[in-house]
């Protein structure tokens, strides 16, 4: 799929998060996207376009257009 095909609302871009289309503003950092979802960054495993993102990169990692994001949220207890 070409990136252009993912464009929708003016000024927004699309990514795929856990197989679901999401619209985000260009330049959105991973940590901001997680905050929008209400996910605590410390409790989620993130893979973007097949690459595991380290926890200390969440603040600076900017989601690329058309990104395929896989999030695995963890809850406490064991």
């Amino acid at each position, binding site marked *: 799929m070409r990136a252009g095909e993912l464009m929708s609302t003016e000024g927004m871009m699309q990514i795929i998060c856990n197989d679901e289309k999401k619209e985000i503003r260009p330049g959105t950092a991973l940590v901001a996207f997680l905050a929008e979802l209400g996910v605590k960054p410390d409790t989620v495993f993130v893979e973007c376009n097949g690459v595991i993102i380290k926890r200390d990169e969440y603040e600076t990692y900017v989601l690329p257009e058309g990104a395929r994001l896989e999030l695995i949220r963890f*809850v406490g207890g064991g």
Partner: protein
Amino acid sequence: MPDRKEIEDVLAERHGAALQARIAEGVVGVMGLGGLGSAVAVALVRIGIGKLLLADYDVVELSNLNRQYYFADQIGLPKTVALRDTLLRINPYVSLEIINERLSEERIPFLFQGVDVLAECFDDPVMKPAALRAALTGLAGVGYVGASGMAGFGDNNRIVTRRIYPRVYLVGDAQAEVGPSQGLMAPRVGIAAHHQANQVLRLLLGVDEESE
């Protein structure tokens, strides 16, 4: 007290000699020795696992006894020591290595180099993704069985085992978080722990199939 050969013979008779030989070669790391890890370790020792690496930094507390494999006379002992004592009562010849430290993402690849399978049994939701990252980036090819979501007394059958990568699995309902409204209780934590133990066994025996 039975000797080593008697125990090995009985296990081989029960499980089949070829299968038992593979279990007896298995080396498994257990990260966190709470309700999940203590039960996983007991199950694996009962089936004749070769070696366990048991990691925890905590001591046994009275509040642990509602779900963890410890006894009232072990309160105050490091969990590593208390669990080792219990496991040696099941099989006095099993090989056990204890790691009495608080694990971190950085230390996990170093401490568990060479294990066949790693069981993530942490209570702390921050350590769960950290351990998964550590295994996938620092222990390439290791079998991995993590857990998330087993609090309360919800439906048995919502505890499932999902394959997320080759040889990497997550057990639980992915939702039931421990908190003020629902605590961890022996029955459901035990279900999750035994999902984990069986998945560890499957990996040791070379089974790595997508769930149906």
